[in-house]
């Protein structure tokens, strides 16, 4: 049965995972240490796995015959609904890890709650993702602390990553009619309900790292509605190249 709301919700979560996975995959082979290279690939792979399940679920609920690849490779910027945070460029390792931590601290609160969703498919994905997110946040929080506390240079880099990315964190907790309607039915988790839990995770880590969120930074949003930053178009140009160059071919 077509269910446009659930399809839109699954697509949002799937797009977050897909785009963040892609960003992390850009690092592979170029990490600061072999162990971190492997960890970045591993996290990227976890997120890609989540994305595939969520996009497949979105395609099914949408009922237009689009599979995971049709959704991943066949849409343009306006139809992507990921958070602006996850499409921001990697920058240096500090920027990548701050971005990851801000996202992981949300994901680790989202997935366990969503695993109680009344939608069985979403609950299933969420159960798997919850375990992965727990590892991810441990890893990214540890790096935020190491870099914030480490050397003068690493501290400056981590703080500048935080200054750059903090304005994008606010979008995580914005909800529109999609989440509101589904949360009421026990299918989705209302993002606004996660804010204080996210803060309770983020604040102690930043404190231990000696980092402070920028004052008066405002909130950058629009991703959920397809109003993206300039970066997404470039990412898609690379990501979708093969499917665009060879339409209809099977791989």
């Amino acid at each position, binding site marked *: 049965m077509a269910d446009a709301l659930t399809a839109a919700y699954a697509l949002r979560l799937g797009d977050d995972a897909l785009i963040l996975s*892609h960003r992390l*995959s*850009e690092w*592979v*082979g*170029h*990490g*600061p*240490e*072999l*162990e*971190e*290279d*492997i960890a970045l*690939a*591993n996290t*990227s*792979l976890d997120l*890609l*796995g989540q*994305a*595939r399940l969520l*996009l497949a679920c979105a395609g099914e609920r949408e009922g237009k015959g689009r599979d*995971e*690849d049709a959704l*991943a*490779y066949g849409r343009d910027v306006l139809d992507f609904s990921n958070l602006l945070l996850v499409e921001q460029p990697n920058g*240096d*390792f500090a920027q990548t890890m701050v971005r990851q931590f801000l996202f992981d601290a949300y994901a680790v609160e989202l997935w366990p709650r969503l695993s109680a969703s009344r939608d069985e498919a979403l609950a299933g994905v969420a159960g798997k993702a919850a375990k992965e997110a727990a590892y991810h946040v441990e890893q990214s929080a540890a790096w935020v*602390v*190491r*870099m914030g*506390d*480490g*050397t003068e*240079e*690493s501290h400056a*880099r981590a703080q500048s990553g935080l200054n750059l990315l903090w304005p994008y964190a606010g979008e995580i907790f914005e909800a529109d009619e999609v989440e509101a309607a589904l949360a009421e039915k026990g299918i989705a988790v209302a993002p606004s309900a996660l804010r204080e839990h996210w803060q309770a995770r983020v604040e102690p880590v930043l404190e231990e790292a000696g980092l402070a969120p920028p004052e008066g930074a405002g909130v950058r949003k629009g991703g959920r509605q397809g109003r993206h930053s300039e970066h997404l178009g470039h990412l898609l140009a*690379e*990501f979708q*190249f*093969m*499917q665009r160059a*060879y339409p*209809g*071919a*099977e*791989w």
Partner: protein
Amino acid sequence: MYTQGLNQAVEDSGPEDAELLARFQAKIDREEKIEPNDWMPEAYRQTLIRQISQHAHSEIVGMLPEGNWLTRAPSLRRKAILLAKVQDEGGHGLYLYAAAETLGISRAEMVDRLLEGRARYSSIFNYPTITWADIGAVGWLVDGAAIMNQIPLCRCSYGPYARAMIRICKEESFHQRQGYEAISRLAKGTAAQKRMAQDALDRWWWPSLMMFGPSDADSPHTGRSMRWKIKRFTNDELRQKFVDATVPQARLIGLEPPDPELRYDEESGHWHFGEIDWTEFNEVLAGNGPCNRERMAARRKAHADGAWVREAATAHARKKQSRMAMAAAAE
């Protein structure tokens, strides 16, 4: 993935105790493993350090040509497979560095040798991955050639290396199958896909045959490595095995290796193949392959860009330790 260092000489460092040497050789002859704390001739140690570290470097540098397609994989399934594969290569590198460390060298020293150009990695990774079909070809041919070399290494006389190779071979065999499956899909696909697949075979065929190293006639140190059971088959034996296995695989999917002399020899039961261009082999080895400079530049850049990260981790660990010591003292 693979190391090319099987034939490089390590000079004997001088006279060693004849009795120890005899006992060492007897142990090898009984097919017993040499372990890190056992006595071993210095040349055996150095040969293994060189071979295992080259193997590890090859895994790490090998992440680059494949990583080149991570952001452009043509489907989510292919992207997931490639990510998992490249992650495996990193894991193999880690595992092999650890095996080499049991011989008394640090990973940092091995990495320095690579970055300073004093250590080699497999020359195959100095070739570019130009199209998506190259990802299939690398899995099928490069990992296929690597497996031919590596399966005998599971019985290598040095325990830590042999054990590492058992796990690595399992994963490499999966890599080879996925590579063949990927290129088969192209060979059965559209005209453009088929062209891409044949082109990849054309470019990767000869370099893959070169992966087995110089021919036996030009491989003077094979004898000692075989006596020490670091090596079990000669370069030419392994190369022939690879050709025998691979030609039928290519033809099965309608692809043709770029060798006009290729023909099946009923008498010997082997595929006869043409002469390898050893000039090309030596040129790539000497640093003049298509991507030697790019690969080393990428490794050096990652290492240099990561310096502040590694320093931060060390500084944080030190601070944490001293804070804990101060807290303990205050109690």
